[in-house]
């Protein structure tokens, strides 16, 4: 069990780290897709199959496509044009900040006594249960999320649309 978790964790961290370090935007996007797939694997390991499927559908399937489109639409110059580290100072400041956050988090996690000593029962949740939850107590939130998605979709179209319809796309 733990071994599987370690393996999944290692793979997804490696993919994410490589994506953040890669000089090629396309590579970054593809590596990130891999990291998302790893997260889906983690969900599967944890017993949340439905969330895993949602992760695959939304991130691996949809968001990665948008990212690729965005990369292609905003590309300047050659396909593999390397993206420079803008300035070493900012990169160093960023990494130091992230390291500080990590230190604080580790301290908090490891320093807190977790009273889950006994092995938990194998948790699992069926799609039927999730559906009942969504349509029952969380129906209002579901509706609002639906509206939010619709509005976001329309907003994205409006923002990304060319100003003048008769203007040829740049």
């Amino acid at each position, binding site marked *: 069990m733990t071994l599987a978790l370690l393996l999944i964790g290692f793979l997804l961290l490696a993919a994410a780290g490589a994506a953040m370090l890669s000089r090629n935007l396309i590579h970054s996007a593809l590596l990130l897709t891999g990291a998302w797939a790893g997260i889906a694997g983690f969900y599967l390991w944890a017993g949340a199959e439905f969330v895993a499927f949602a992760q695959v559908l939304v991130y691996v399937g949809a968001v990665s496509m948008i990212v690729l489109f965005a990369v292609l639409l905003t590309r300047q110059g050659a396909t593999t044009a390397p993206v420079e580290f803008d300035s070493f100072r*900012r990169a160093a*400041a*960023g990494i130091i*900040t*992230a390291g*500080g*956050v990590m230190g*604080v*988090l580790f*301290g*908090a996690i490891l*320093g807190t006594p977790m009273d889950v000593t006994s092995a938990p029962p194998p948790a699992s949740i069926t799609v039927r249960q999730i559906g009942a939850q969504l349509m029952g107590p969380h129906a209002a939130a579901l509706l609002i999320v639906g509206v939010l998605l619709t509005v976001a979709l329309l907003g994205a179209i409006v923002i990304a649309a060319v100003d003048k319809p008769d203007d040829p796309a740049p």
Partner: protein
Amino acid sequence: MTLAVQHLWLIPALPLAAAAVGALAPRSGRTLAAGAAIGAMAGSFILACLALAGALADPAAHQVFNFAWFDLGFGALRLGFLLDPLTAFMCVMVAFVSLLIFIFSTGYMKEDANYKQFFCFLSLFAAAMLGLVVANSLLLLFVCWELVGLASYLLIGFWFHKPSAAAAAKKAFITTRIGDLGFLLGLLWLQDNQGTLLFYDGGAGFLEAAALANLSHLLPCGLAVSTAIGLLIFCGAVGKSGQFPLHVWLPDAMEGPTPVSALIHAATMVAAGVFLIARVYPLMTADQALANVPVHALTVVAFIGAFTALLGALIAVAQNDIKRILAFSTVSQLGYMMLALGVGSWVAAIFHLLTHAFFKALLFLGAGSVIHAAHHEQDIRALGGLSKKMKVTYLTFALGTMALVGVPLLFSGFWSKEAILHAAHGWRVSHLPFYAAVLGVVLTAFYNTRLMAETFFGSPRSENAAHARENGPAMTLPLVILAACAVLLSLVNLPSYPWLAAKLLGEQEVRGHPIFEGAGLMGLSVVLVALGVGLGWALYGRSLRANSAAKDPLAVRAPGVIAALANRLGFDELYAATVGRLNAALATLADVLDRFVWGGAVDFLAALGQFTGLVTRETDERTLNGGFDTTSDKLRGAGQAYSQAQTGEAHGYLRTLALGFVILLLLVVLGGAR
């Protein structure tokens, strides 16, 4: 199949919808507006017939449907609809006469540019009138009452480019408003006294016994409360029904198109006053049991009615405009109805109202037919000889005249007038109204004979009359139908079988008495009619007028009297000299007060305010502003300093966020350890 009381609102709603259609239709939508109006009216007529069937199933019951309009602090204001034989008969009459007049109007107004507007107004009027009839609340009735007044204003002034029409519309509106003020006061008083304006409400309405008992205490002036309220409400009826002293607007209202005169100023609207008194009859009679009051409400009604009946008939003798003669005859006939109400026979009043509606609508439409054919020539001295040219109009007009005069046995007007004379004869208080009514009968016969003789007999006395031709079927068909009704309507209330009276009084079975029981009175009235007709024929029929400039034979014999009558006994001048002048004086007084007294006070206050303002401004600028200026300068400087931190760089923000998080967490952890 009957119409339940819950659906009674449909009857006024249909023409209201037609009015909306007419209002929204484009100017060219003439057929649409007229079609909607006529269709809605036909629907209303059918519904009214169904309602009548429902009412007659149980004539003694007052079926009501009340609902809360809105909530006030002290309770809900409730309106309602009422279905009883009185309402149902009125509905059928109004809807039927309106329908025929609408049809007539399609012919009469054919050339008018504002055709669709005309039908919009007509529908609005019919809706208001029907709403007035079905109301079960004095408030709803009042609202419709005022709407009727508005429609009347719009229709009298329909040809507003004529100054006389605009003036007549204004006069009608303001004169009736004087009466309505009394009505409104009575209504408020009643609301204050009873807490309800519903007629019938399962024992709680103000026309029911429990409420009427509360109204019998006496006021300081000696009148009972119910008498005072009744007389105030009667003020409204006086204005609307053209009774003395507010009768002056009705003849002027003839400036409107003739179908309007027929609909509003003959058949329906003016009858609203009579209907109102009949509707609140229990209130009007509540003081009859009291012996120690100086006057009963109904006594006033009877005397005003009798006087108006005589006055209208007298003035009609000396008029020359065909519509004006009919208008004064309307004033006179409404006086008869009021007389019947006053002497205690509201059934006779309603019977006369119904018969009068038909034959007077017929007479007005006949007059309209004549006027239309004679190119808007209305002076009977310039008409003549139309009996050969316009056969249908002539015959129907003659039938209407005979009904109005009261030619015995066959005609509806005879029986209804007979009922009124009978009731007046039996009145215990005084016989004066009866004599006035009798004299009125003679005069009515006289001036109608003159009208017929001058208009239809002899030879044409003007170009316009010579070229008159019979009108198309849209105009003649309503005449024929109305003429048939004017004759046949007598059958519903013959003395030997008074079906209408029994239904109105809520009796299941009809109990008549032998037809010749009141033979003495009937004989008298036959003699009177014969006398009037004979006089008229002797003066006007035997030697027909030679040309339009010839002198009136009556004016030759008594020039002073006729001149005074032609001038309508100077009521307009009297009002102009008294009410008008008083008004002007009051206005001048108000003007002076305004200009000098109030104006001076206001000027002084304004000067004071200006001075205060000056002082305040000085204080502000010197002392207060200095302090505020310094403070705001400091604030602005601080804001500029802080805005330096806003670099606009997203990276910087995110970094600050993360560092802040680290610091916060460290604080919590270290603090938690302490």
